[in-house]
């Protein structure tokens, strides 16, 4: 079984390694290491930072790198099972002797391998930074140990989550991404507070270890010390010496506790895997992101038996009597209507949510419509938005569309459809804000309605897959509208965002993003 799983993993890893995603992720993480170690410093207990030993370098980069990997690693490794569906390889696999266990485990291993590659780049960048800027002896255990024992289990968890959200049918599509991002943020937040059921980023562990050694050197520092801070390198900090984590048996067991969760996720994947049979599987599909056809797929041509092939003369006649088309202008209205149909033909549960959102936007308390329902509407629109720029590649219609007179102008109806979906969901809130004299807040809603589809198009056209935009928007959504980070509050649901003039930035960004999309669209 292991040999078969390794073969599955190798094939998947080869495919991934031949795309630009992994090298780009590796370069970005290397740059992250440079930012952490050279441009800034980690602050403990308000004003203390560690001496630049190998252990300090390894731990600080590892903690922040693992946190970042928890977010960006997921879209990197997710898609292995979906790729087999999309390419039709699924038919070959489903009818082979390949066991579900070997397949799932192979996909998991491929994800682990891909993220290990990214982590290796980060560890290498950390080593270079230590050798050029660090102090003290080279300590391989202190430098690389955290990457193995902290990042390693996190990687396994990310890879397992990627598999389980592709295999369990309700989690396929955008719903799985949303669930993952919420869980990841919750784990990070609880990790900082020391209340996480699994210390996946190692932050709790590092805080505990650093606090113990800091208090020994500076008894005036009071316990407990919560959280880390990160700031640009400055001279106003006091240094303390931290010799790294003492890997006791209990700590090792704590680190390996996530392996049990990985095992649980993989077991869940194996027992619910429908072996590529859309009619099978343990759980029904309720994905918000899918816009599956309501018609069952035909296995045969239904019309063949009804009509015999006509003789050549009748075909001649049919061709001769075909009305000649007239070349006119680009059918913007028809194309936009079709794009709207594609965006809105979703399952009943999506329409229930949309009805509630629109109902509150029109009739609900204005404060709730703005601060609570508008952010939810952005989530509801996410599947439609993320599909916009990627549809020709995802649905394999590129050859049909990009051989027409001007493929770039196709972006216009696609964009208008995205604007239409968002305007339909939250446009009423914007109008009510305007009528209530809150022009700034109304501009915030308008900025979101205009800028989000433009961003979705730009990302979709350049990246070609919807998950990158979905992840980005979910992170921005969590940090902006939910947690009040003004720059990312794309709907200006907080008064501070309006006061800072952020809505006008989003309004100005829309044409720039559309230009970026137009540049990326093959013409």
């Amino acid at each position, binding site marked *: 079984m292991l040999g078969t799983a390794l073969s599955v993993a190798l094939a998947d890893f080869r495919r991934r390694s031949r795309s630009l995603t992994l090298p780009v992720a590796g370069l970005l993480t290397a740059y992250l290491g440079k930012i952490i170690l050279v441009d800034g410093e980690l602050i403990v207990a308000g004003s203390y930072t560690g001496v630049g030993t190998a252990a300090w370098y390894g731990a600080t980069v590892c903690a922040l790198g693992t946190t970042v990997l928890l977010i960006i690693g997921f879209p990197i490794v997710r898609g292995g099972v979906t790729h087999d569906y999309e390419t039709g390889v699924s038919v070959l696999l489903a009818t082979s002797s390949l066991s579900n266990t070997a397949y799932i485990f192979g996909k998991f291993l491929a994800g682990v391998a891909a993220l290990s590659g990214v982590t290796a780049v980060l560890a290498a960048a950390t080593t270079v930074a230590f050798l050029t800027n660090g102090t003290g002896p080279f300590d391989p255990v202190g430098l690389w140990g955290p990457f193995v024992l902290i990042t390693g289990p996190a990687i396994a968890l990310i890879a397992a989550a990627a598999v389980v959200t592709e295999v369990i049918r309700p989690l396929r599509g955008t719903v799985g991404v949303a669930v993952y991002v919420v869980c990841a943020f919750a784990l990070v937040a609880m990790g900082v507070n020391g209340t996480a059921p699994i210390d996946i980023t190692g932050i709790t562990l590092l805080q505990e270890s650093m606090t113990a050694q800091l208090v020994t050197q500076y008894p005036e520092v009071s316990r407990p010390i919560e959280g880390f801070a990160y700031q640009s390198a400055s001279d106003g900090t006091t240094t303390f010496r931290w010799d790294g984590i003492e890997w006791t048996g209990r700590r090792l067991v704590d680190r390996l506790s996530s392996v049990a969760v990985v095992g649980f996720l993989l077991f869940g994947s194996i027992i619910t895997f429908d072996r590529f049979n859309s009619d099978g599987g343990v759980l029904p599909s309720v994905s918000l992101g899918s*816009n599956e056809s309501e018609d069952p*797929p035909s*296995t045969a041509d239904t*019309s063949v038996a009804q009509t015999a092939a006509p003789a050549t003369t009748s*075909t001649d006649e049919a061709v001769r009597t075909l009305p000649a088309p007239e*070349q006119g202008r680009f*059918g913007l209205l028809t194309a936009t209507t*079709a794009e709207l149909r594609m965006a809105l033909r979703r399952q009943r549960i999506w329409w229930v949510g949309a009805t509630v959102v629109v109902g509150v936007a029109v009739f609900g308390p204005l404060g709730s419509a703005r601060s609570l329902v508008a952010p939810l509407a952005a989530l509801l629109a996410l599947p439609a938005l993320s599909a916009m720029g990627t549809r020709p590649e995802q*649905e*394999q219609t590129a050859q049909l569309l990009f051989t027409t007179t001007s493929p770039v102008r196709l972006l216009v109806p696609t964009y208008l459809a995205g604007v239409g979906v968002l305007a339909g969901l939250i446009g009423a809130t914007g109008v009510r804000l305007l009528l209530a004299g809150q022009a700034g807040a109304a501009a915030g809603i308008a900025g979101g309605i205009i800028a989000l589809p433009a961003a979705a198009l730009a990302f979709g056209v350049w990246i070609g897959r919807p998950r990158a935009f979905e992840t980005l928007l979910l992170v921005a959504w969590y940090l902006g509208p939910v947690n009040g980070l003004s720059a990312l509050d794309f709907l200006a649901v907080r008064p501070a965002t309006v006061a800072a003039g952020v809505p006008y930035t989003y309004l100005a960004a829309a044409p720039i993003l559309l230009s970026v999309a137009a540049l990326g669209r093959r013409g």
Partner: protein
Amino acid sequence: MKLELDTLGKQYGDTWALQDVDLELDPGVVGLLGPNGAGKSTLMQIVTTFTKPTEGTVRWNGTDVVDSPGAIREDVGYLPQEFGVYPSLTAREFLQYLAAVRGLSEPTERIEQLLNLVNLEDDADRRLGGFSGGMRRRAGIAQALLSDPDLLIVDEPTVGLDPTERARFRSLLTSLAADRIVVLSTHIVPDVEATADEIALLDDGQLLTHTTPADLLAAVEGSVWEAIVSESELADLKSRHTVASMTRRSDGVHVRIVADESPVQGANLAEPTLEEAYLSRVEQSPTTATMEVSQ
């Protein structure tokens, strides 16, 4: 109308998918034949401006379409070998969408008649996600004809069609060819035999010949043999000659062989088919080709 390819080439990495192809096409059906990897799809993607050539030019009615892709895009209808549809749209909505994209005004009547022509009138309001492969391909044929193109390029159009629909499509191609250029790429030689006025034979990215079916057949006249052999003789024959077809009967294996001289004692000269002419010509090319022989 005229399509001219001049020293056309396309390189992927170190491999030339297409090299030094010169071709001039006038109205009529040209069958583009060649083994897998011969460069047929690449050629069609370049002509339709989906892919840019590495070298050479494509001229449509005298205009270089690499520099001015718009010159051919208004006039071309293209059915790719592999293409997708939007599963949430119905067949009629999909055609309306593509008509709008192509800038066709008042396309409703033409769409209805095209749906009839490809025998999808009863399924026009069903979503494409529920269509079988053959039905999707027929929707693809309809979209290729939307703009009444002067240049119709169809890549493996009959794959997935049942025999009835295949025959219907052959008739359609013949009817369409009267006043336009139709480029038909296929492995199915009988489809070419039934429809093509000319044949362009590609192998390993190079144009082996551009000729008429009659001339291709004449070239192999006297080189096709029929014989009845045993299983052991068959193995020997296969190792020495191209066996174009074989049928197992009670008196032995009936074979048709392409060879310059009588390949086995008792063999009789036979009337060549276009498929045998194709096999013979490809066998003579420098590259040993893998053949897909349709039955």
